[in-house]
Structure formats: C-alpha cells, structure tokens
C-alpha cells in the first residue's frame, strides 16, 4: 500500500506541526501550510489524498478554501477541524463535500481514526472510479 499523502492546513503553527509530527510517524507523507491560499497553491504542486482543514483562519477562511479545493480536486478527502462554535460550519463543510468534521480539541487517536477512514474511503472511491471507467488509466 502506497503512503497516503496528507496536507495539514491550520494557522496555529504549533498545532499543525504537532499533527504533522504525529501522523508522519504513523506512516503518512505530510505537508503543512498555515493559510488557505498556501493550501490551494500546494494542490498545484502535488497531489494529496487527505486534507485536514481548519475552518477558522485569517484571510481565506476554511469554507472558501474547501470550495476551491473541491473545485480543483473533487476526489480529495477533506477532514474539517472546527471549534465548537462553528460546528454548524462543519455541517456546511459536509454539504460542500468534506468527508467529516472534528471538533477541537480532539484526541489524537480520534483524529488518527478519521484519517484512516478518510483514506479508506478515498481508496474505495478510486477503485469504483477505476471500475466504472477502465479506460481512464
């Protein structure tokens, strides 16, 4: 199984770095950026399987970023991180095509579990797409 590529988008540098550290140890290829704009740019440079996206960010905010991401790479699975207050925005995020949302503060195990689920879904999804369109490869 190839390494899943994860992009972490969070303006809290310490938080983003920690997650990066933790999940890269668990066998993922991780990139971190600290704002929405960089996230969209990062998509151009490389292909990601999973994006962990904080909703509350200065500049381009989470939901706007999500729209841009989904416009560019509809297949990428996005996990939204949200404070309690913006839980409703988390639901909005799901409507916009995010995989799920997690409320901060989150235990690492829970986050890890979500990442695993997201990756699995991504894989299943890709298989389906391949199955439906065998000529595309």
């Amino acid at each position, binding site marked *: 199984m190839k390494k899943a590529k994860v992009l972490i988008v969070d303006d*809290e540098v310490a938080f983003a770095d*920690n*997650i990066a550290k933790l999940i890269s*140890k668990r066998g993922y290829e991780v990139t971190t950026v600290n704002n929405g704009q960089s996230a969209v740019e990062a998509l151009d440079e490389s292909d990601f399987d999973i994006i962990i996206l904080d909703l509350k960010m200065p500049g381009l905010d989470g939901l706007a970023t999500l729209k841009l991401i989904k416009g560019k790479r509809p297949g990428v699975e996005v996990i939204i*991180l949200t404070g*309690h207050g913006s839980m409703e*925005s988390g639901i909005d995020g799901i409507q916009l095509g995010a995989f799920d949302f997690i409320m*901060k503060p989150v235990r690492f195990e829970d986050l890890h579990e979500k990442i695993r689920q997201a990756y699995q879904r991504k894989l299943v999804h890709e298989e389906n797409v391949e199955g439906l369109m065998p000529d595309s490869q």
Partner: protein
Amino acid sequence: METAESNHPTNGEGPKERQYSRLYRKFVFLTLISSLVPLLLLGWGINIYYSNFSSARMKEYFQSQVEYHRKIIELFLKERTQDLQLVALTHSLEQLQKQPNLMRVLDAINREGQYFTDLGVISEQGKHFAYIGPYDLMGKDYSQTFWFKELMEKKVFISDMFTGFRDAPHFIIAFLRFEGERRWILRASIDTDYLRSLVENVKIGHTGEAYLLNQAGIFQTSPRSSGKIMGKAPLAVGQFKEDSGIRILERDQSSPGPQLPKQIVAYAWLKEPRWLLIVKQDYDEAFRNVNHANQATLIILLLSFLGIILITVIITRTMIKTIRKRDQESDQLNKQLMQASKLASLGELSAGVAHEINNPLAIILMENQVVRDSVEETPTLEEEFKGQLQESLSQIDAQVQRCNLITHNLLRFSRRTISLIEMVDLNAFLREVIQLMEGRGKGMGIQFNTTLEKDLKPILSDPSKLQQVFLNLITNAMDAHEGKPYGSISISTRSNSERQGVEIVVADSGSGISPENLERIFDPFFTTKPVGKGTGLGLSISYSIIEQLGGAISVQSEIGQGTQFTLFLPFGPAKDSQKNLEEVPDQPSLQDPEKEPRK
C-alpha cells in the same frame, strides 16, 4: 412564599415613596390653584355685579316710591285747592255769609270724602264772617297770623301744619277772592288724618317709613320710627329742588343723641306747599335680600370649595395609585429585560472565551500525544518513571477533557440554533424523564409525585432540549436534598388557554435557596455546589433553551421549605425565535448530520 422580586426593592422604597407624596402634593396644589382661583374670581365678580345691580334697583325703587307718593300728595292738595277755588269763584260773599249756604257748600265739597273739616269766610280785615266746623271760631281775628299776611300777596295759600287757635295740628288752604271792590277769603282746614294716612301708611318692611317735613325741618306727619308731628326732625332739610333724589345716610358717629343706623333715604320736594317727602328704610333691611343672596353665594362657594378639594384629593389618590402600579409593572419588566440582556451578553462573552480556549486546548492535547509517542519510542526509560509519566499524561488528557466539557457547555448556553420541532406529549415525555431519574432518586430516599393534567394538548417543541432542561431541574432538585434522609419532587402540568401554552411546575422539598442566591440563579457560573461538582451552567442553559422555545421560566423558593420552578411552554413555537434565526443565517441547525438539514 417569598419571591426574588418581592424581596428586592426594600431599600429603594424610601425615596420613591417621598417622590410619590411630592407628586401627590404637587398635583393637589396645582389642581386646587387652577380650579379655586377662577371660582373665587367668579364668586367675587358675581357678588360685585349683583350688589351693584340690586343696589341700583333698590335706589330706583325708592325713588319711584317717593315720586309716586309725591304725585299722590300733590294731586290731593291740588284737588282740594281747586275745590275751594271753585266754591269761592262761583259764590258771592252774600251767599256764603249765610250759614245754611256755607253748610251746603261744605257738604258738596265733602261729597267724595271727608277732606275738609271746616270752612270759613274771612273778611279783608281778618274777621270771620261765617264759619262751619266743629270749633267755635266765629269772630276770631286772623289779621295777625302768618298765613294771612302771606295770602294777601299770593292769593292762594296752603299752610304748613300748625296748631293755631284750636290746639291741634292741622293745615289750611285759603283762597283770596276779588269780588268787584271787595276782597274776601275762603278758608278751609284739611282733615289731617287723611293726608297723614296717605303718607304714614307707606310701609316698607319693618323699618321703612315715609314722612313729610316742611322747609324748617318740622315733621308734617308722624314718622313711624322716632319723632312726632310738629316735632323737629334730626336731619338737615336743605334747599328746595325740583328733582327728587336719593341718599345713603351713613351712621353719623359725631352727632350726639341716639345713633341712627345706616339708612337709604329717598326725598322729593312738593312744589306747593314746600314740603319735603321722605321715604326711607334702614339700609341693612333694604339690602337684606341682597345680603341673603350674597350669603347664599358664599355658601355655594364654600361647598364648591370643599367639593373641589375632596374630588381633587380622591382623583389624585387614584392617579398616584395607578402611577405607582405602572411603575411597579415597568420595574418588573425592566428587571426581566435586564436579566435577559445580561444573559445574552454573557452568552456572547462566553462563546468568545470558549473559542479562544479551545485552540490552546487542542494544542495541549496534541503535545500530550507527541510526548506519549516519544515515551513509547524511548526504550531506555526506567519502568517506574515511564509509568509515572504515562499517568501524568493521562491526567493531562482527563483535565483537558474537563475543560472541554466546560467550553462545550458554555457554547451550548450561548448558541442559537434551529430547534428540531416535533409534537411532544408533555405528560408522556415527563414520565420518561422521571423514569430516567427514579433509580438515583430511590437511592437518596426521594419520591416522585406527578399531577399531570389529563388529555393535555401536545405541544410543538424540541424534545431533546426539553429533556436537557428537565434532567437539569430534577438533578438540581435531588441535589437540594443533600443531608436529608428523604424528600419528594412534585411535577405537575396544567394547560393555560389564556397564554396558549402549558405550565409545568417542578417543586422539591429540599433546602431552598436564599433570596440573594435566588436572584443570581440563572447567571452563568453561579453555583452553590462545591468546586468541581457543578459548572454553574445548568440553569443558564435551561433558561436560554426555554427562552428559545418561546417559553418562560421562573423560580420561587423558601429556605427550609423547598424550591419551585415554574415553566411555561407555548403550544406552538414562538415566532420571534424564528426571526432570530433568520438574522443569523450562517449558524444553521445543530443536527444529526445524517438528517436533511432544514434550510
């Protein structure tokens, strides 16, 4: 039972009461001024006008009286003079010298009334030629009397009253007749009784009277009050005048003798003889009616005064009472508004705080995980140290979770969300809730009593939120029994058709809440539970939930007796809660993501 409201305004009452009584005095004063001053002016005006009017009328009356009587007297004297003239001119001296002729003439002129007492014919020298009458006057010499001399000049003469030879007051009319070369005089005495009755019978009230005075101020008739015919009148007569007049005689303090009261006097001069007719009355009596009217006015005025004062006082009392009631109502409303706005702003604040705290908490959790990973990856660590470290890391996790719970509750308190509205059968719903709590209740010796209204109309509300509220209330009720071996919690429902909703009462027999605490019971973070046992958010959240659902929650409590929460829930969802949600469009429903969000 004492409520928080009734306990509160004890210290603000003094100045407020003073304000009310000041207001009361002001109202009474202004009303009295504005009604009594015009009343006084009116009364005064009416009094003056009426006095002047009636005084003028009274004077007119007296003047007309005096003129009328003057005319009657003058007419009488004129007729008698004409009678005499007629006799003198139609008879010769020879005819009248004969006693029977003279007698016949006297009878003839007395045919209409006994006006003439006697009739005499007197020579140029003043000797009686003939005489008919009750006195023996034949042969008397009149040549030296005052009237004889005057008659020689005037031809006709009417005398003043005098006693003359007969020693009785009388007056005479004499006519000088020229018969060729001869001159003779026809003279008659007038029955004074008749003239006197003409004047003396004028009666006006008790003190009103009329009398005649001659130019010397001698009574020609007897006045009723004081003085006698031929007596001297106590007032100055003055000069002869054509016109009649009227005078008010004040009490003359300077003159000696008996004091005459203030009098109204009308007077008129007769032309021949020059007698002064006087009609007079005591001023007080003449104006008694006016005074009566004035007194009546005064009494009416006084009664109006009292009436106005009474009505003013009553009206002002009522008004102040109404104002006081309004004030109290608005005070209460203000208190409720303040409570609501306090909770709203606290909600905003706590939402902000919760947000800000969540981020560092997230970082702490992640750091924790990093350390945990490092511990796992480091095989050289001593077992004991490793165990200790892992325990601490778990403790950090647990404490972060605790913080998490707090921020979670804070956000729940502040958040406005669309409710998941369903039909709720409150009775069944409450039974379920009680069932949930019954187990714990039994352990504490607490019994649940329910008085649920039969056939209660179901309401449209959010059952999950309601469950939160009632679980919270029941938990609090149970906690209020701490230290008591047993107790009870009563829950009742009752529909209120007037307010279009249901009233639910949750009452416990617990320790009660002190009035100071009762006021702050819905404030976030206010708790009487020991540190770590409660966040102080339960009732705040309940309050905001019930408000969102368009209901109301209130509390009554008495120390040692227990506490009673009264909830009101409308049959249908409140309209303004919908409106609130429209204003916050980017905070849609907090719903199970599986379900279709309502948007």
